[in-house]
């Protein structure tokens, strides 16, 4: 009896999920139909806007000869390396600085300054220091993520109420227990928010940097296609960029952010 009710509930959840997924996709279906009908109908010059078929064709070609996969791989690789490097440095540094209120209030303005500069503004100097290629782009991504995450970690640690830290200390928490059971969990919602914002800037910075300073990657693909007026490749690239970021943000970052703020943050599950 109980098991059946559970199954029914499960089914209802599934159905709800399915219908909201369908509703999410419906507007795109309308847009695609409009695209397929209107562009040939008004005889738009394919140099201005491509036909749906030619974009699909460009996508298939890119997958078949491996160029599209290589560009996507290069872009994702750079984002991953830059982000992981930044997190490895940013989180410990942010916690170390946030522990003391004096230090954190002193260091907040410089970190705000540098997180303002995050990403794109570093492209010219990065390309001079590291030359065109992997180094410069990874540096830009590292910068976009590093300063914002450090700043947010610092903010997160410094907003942990002092009573909580005092309580833990008076209950005999050592340094390690303090770090893993008070400071890290307390700052985690802020850290995750920082990662999400930082990655948003990093993704844009990546596309811009690839337009300027490399010979492989999605941004480069777009920029080269422009030289030959290959609008179908440009539109394909834009769709790929949009879909990738949507997947990354909605399926990975947003759920993590929601989960951490429900688990450790101020939001209570209803």
């Amino acid at each position, binding site marked *: 009896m109980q098991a059946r009710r559970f199954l029914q509930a499960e089914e209802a959840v599934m159905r709800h999920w399915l219908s909201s997924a369908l*509703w*999410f*996709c*419906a*507007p*795109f279906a*309308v*847009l695609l139909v409009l695209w397929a009908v209107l562009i040939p109908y008004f005889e738009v010059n394919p*140099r*201005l806007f491509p036909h749906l078929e030619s974009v699909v064709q460009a996508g298939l070609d890119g997958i078949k000869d491996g160029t599209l996969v290589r560009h996507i791989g290069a872009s994702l690789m750079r984002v991953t390396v830059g982000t992981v490097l930044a997190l490895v440095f940013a989180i410990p540094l942010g916690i170390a600085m946030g522990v003391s209120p*004096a230090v954190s*209030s*002193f*260091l*907040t*303005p*410089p970190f*705000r*300054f*540098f997180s*303002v*500069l*995050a*990403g*794109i*503004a*570093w*492209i*010219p*100097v990065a*390309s*001079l*220091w590291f030359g065109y290629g992997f180094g410069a782009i990874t540096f830009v991504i590292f910068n976009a993520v590093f300063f914002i995450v450090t700043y947010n970690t610092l903010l997160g640690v410094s907003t942990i109420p002092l009573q909580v830290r005092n309580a833990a200390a008076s209950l005999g928490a050592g340094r390690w227990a303090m770090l893993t059971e008070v400071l890290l969990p307390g700052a985690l919602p802020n850290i995750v928010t920082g990662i999400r914002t930082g990655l948003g*800037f990093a*993704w*844009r910075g990546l*596309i*811009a940097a690839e*337009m*300027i300073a490399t010979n492989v990657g999605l*941004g480069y693909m*777009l*920029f080269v*296609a*422009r030289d030959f*007026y290959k*609008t179908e490749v*440009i*539109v394909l*690239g*834009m*769709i790929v*960029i*949009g*879909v990738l*970021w*949507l997947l990354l*943000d*909605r399926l990975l970052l947003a759920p993590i952010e929601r989960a951490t703020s429900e688990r450790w943050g101020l939001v209570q599950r209803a």
Partner: protein
Amino acid sequence: MTTLLLRAWSRYLRLTTHWPSIGTIVPFIPLIVAWWLVTELQVFPRVFLPGPAEVVRSFGALVYTGVLPEYLQDSIVRLAVGSFWGIVLGIPLGILVGLSQRAHKALWPVLLFFQAIGDIAWLPILVIWFGYGLTTMTVVIVYTVIFPVVLNTVLGVRSIPITMHRAALSLGASRTRMLWEVVLPGALPNVMTGLRNGLGYGWRALIATEIIVGTSGIGFLMFDARRAGSVVEILLGMIILGTLWYIVDSWILAPIERATGQRWGLVTK
């Protein structure tokens, strides 16, 4: 020794509570000193990392020749025009999507997707459509500003408790009064947050656009310097960008956001 340091520290703290702006300037002093030391000791070659003095000198030279004020003005005008249109189009659209269930169902996924494409990815095709020039830049900035504004306005409108709507309706509020006295004030804190984010993104998009398709502006200044291999002017450009945005953000936008949040939002004094 320690008492002396402590006394100096407490003096500093007292000073910063009186004049908070000192607290934002002083922390940069050690940073600049460290920069100066690194360049004096020649840790990196001078060509790669010039010192503060050289940057100040190039600032003077560029101001004297009038290049810098002109570029700065170009950048700010572009940002202002783009943001203006972004706000004018974004807030009504956000209110529409927030109020109407049907518009929400039809437009929300599309909005999310087009936001995900990102401003800079539009550059190549915009260049094909409009060429190099002001139109391309304005479109990119409007595009960048509009999404955070719309998405946050929608969130704000939808976060107004339904009881508020019902209370106003049962007290006989007309449609316009609902809009002016319930929906807009209720959504205002979120709209302000969206505006602040949007301008932040718009500022970065402007720089990227100027770097890639620009013929003037701070971004162009940096890219031109990069072509000539002059790190001094790149660093100068970065410092100007950072300082300008820091001032706009922390002295204008953040206080407005805080004020509306306190007045209409959930934060109580």
